[in-house]
């Protein structure tokens, strides 16, 4: 996947206003089946899959015992005792090893399917119509974070269509054989109704709506509680890896919190730049941009919790200069999901 095709701004606007397509075949897929599939997924996953209906998707994390994050992922409930996990490309090897290690004592079958699947993300307000008219795939019966299986010539690996994405817009993701995915890509591009989109705008789009990227806003050192993603950590579950540490952190309050910061200038705060209060370092920028949709210099930053209150004045060191700004909500553009 290249950084860009026609340009980050152009592709970004296409997704916000019409339709764009991303070839995200690099994502990883793992299938978990067997008598203990549900309890095993609940053991490694912070969200709660117990008794969710078939066709439902949950977002959450796999955590270490100390609450640090192995990866953030989607769990698809295909059927009873049958779960499909979508994991980050950069973490595939680590995740697969982790998933295997933790499965001891559980009666489950694990299948690593990353090489069997290609994946397309069709995103934007026109995505439902474009997908129907160009690919003949009807997604109108799906609500946000649900999926269905597709009837294609090959049923292995199981072709799936979900109403999900990483852009803050309505959209779909198709999981199927690389051949089928390539055919869909070619048809969509040839139609002229869907812009090819690259990694550049994938990051600007997800950033604007405050979605985390593993490695920036979540990591082995940044827990979901610090990242403000506690809603995806079900502490009322009986047990899961990391529960004790996360429960303690939630009760005590984390030492650092992820916040949004808006600068009073056009300079761009980028990953790793230091956040200051009265000249003293209080944290670091995790992701920052001059936002395309709202024309502001903003970032997400992990800072000492005492400064995380909205409207707190903070500074960011950018090269040789110090720029002033304030703490804001870490969502810089409203999501437009179809519920």
């Amino acid at each position, binding site marked *: 996947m290249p*950084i*860009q095709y026609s*340009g*980050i*701004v152009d592709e970004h606007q296409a997704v916000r206003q019409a339709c764009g397509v991303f070839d995200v075949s690099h994502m990883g897929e793992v299938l978990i089946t067997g008598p203990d599939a549900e309890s095993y997924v609940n053991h490694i996953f912070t969200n709660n899959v117990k008794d969710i209906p078939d066709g439902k998707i949950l977002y959450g994390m796999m955590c270490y015992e100390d609450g640090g994050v192995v990866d953030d992922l989607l769990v698809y409930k295909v059927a009873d005792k049958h779960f499909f996990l979508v994991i980050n490309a950069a973490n595939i090897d680590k995740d697969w090893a982790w998933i295997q290690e933790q499965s001891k004592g559980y009666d489950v079958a694990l299948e690593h399917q990353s090489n069997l699947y290609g994946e397309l993300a069709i995103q934007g307000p026109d995505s439902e119509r474009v997908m129907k008219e160009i690919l003949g795939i009807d997604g109108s019966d799906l609500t946000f974070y649900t999926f269905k299986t597709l009837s294609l010539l090959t049923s292995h690996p199981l072709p799936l269509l979900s109403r999900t994405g990483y852009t803050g817009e309505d959209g779909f993701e198709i999981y199927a054989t690389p051949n089928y995915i390539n055919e869909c890509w070619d048809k969509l591009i040839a139609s002229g109704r869907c812009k090819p989109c690259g990694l*550049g705008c994938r990051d*600007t789009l997800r950033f604007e709506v405050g979605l985390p990227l593993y490695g920036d806003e979540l990591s082995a050192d940044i827990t979901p509680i610090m990242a403000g993603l506690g809603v995806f950590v079900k502490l009322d579950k009986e047990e899961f890896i990391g529960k004790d540490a996360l429960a303690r952190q939630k009760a005590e309050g984390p030492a650092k919190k992820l916040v949004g910061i808006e600068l009073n200038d*056009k*300079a*761009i705060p*980028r990953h790793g730049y230091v956040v200051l209060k009265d000249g003293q370092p209080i944290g670091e920028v995790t992701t920052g*941009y*001059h936002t*395309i949709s709202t024309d502001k*210099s903003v970032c997400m930053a992990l800072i000492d919790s005492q400064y995380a209150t909205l409207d707190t004045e903070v500074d960011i060191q*950018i*090269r040789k*200069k110090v720029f002033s700004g304030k703490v804001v909500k870490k969502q810089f553009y409203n999501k437009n999901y179809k519920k």
Partner: protein
Amino acid sequence: MAKVLEGLYYSESHEFVRVDGDYGFVGITDYAQNALGNVVYVDMPEVDDEVAAGEEFGAVESVKAASDLISPVSGTVVEINEALEDTPELINQDAFENWIIKVELSDKADLDNLMDAKAYAAFCEK
């Protein structure tokens, strides 16, 4: 295809100098603006700041990344292009017309270390 203008001096880090008497207008080349994509901010020095050949004097920010500006000449900044403060995208529209700083040159021998249009065009081809 990136535009290269005759009569200017060029650096390997893709800055240009247009010499006018004792002064040099420094900016980034068309090749550089094209590689950067949409410019959203130009970090400029202040008037009366000293710049030195081969040393950083600011940065150009695109959506993608921040790129340091390396001065091709030494001297004193006598003017900055204030239009870029509010409309940095002028650099995308015409990089050569929208210089970034005007420098009073302290040593014109700096120019001998820079490329002419033909050499720079060949450099960009590599």
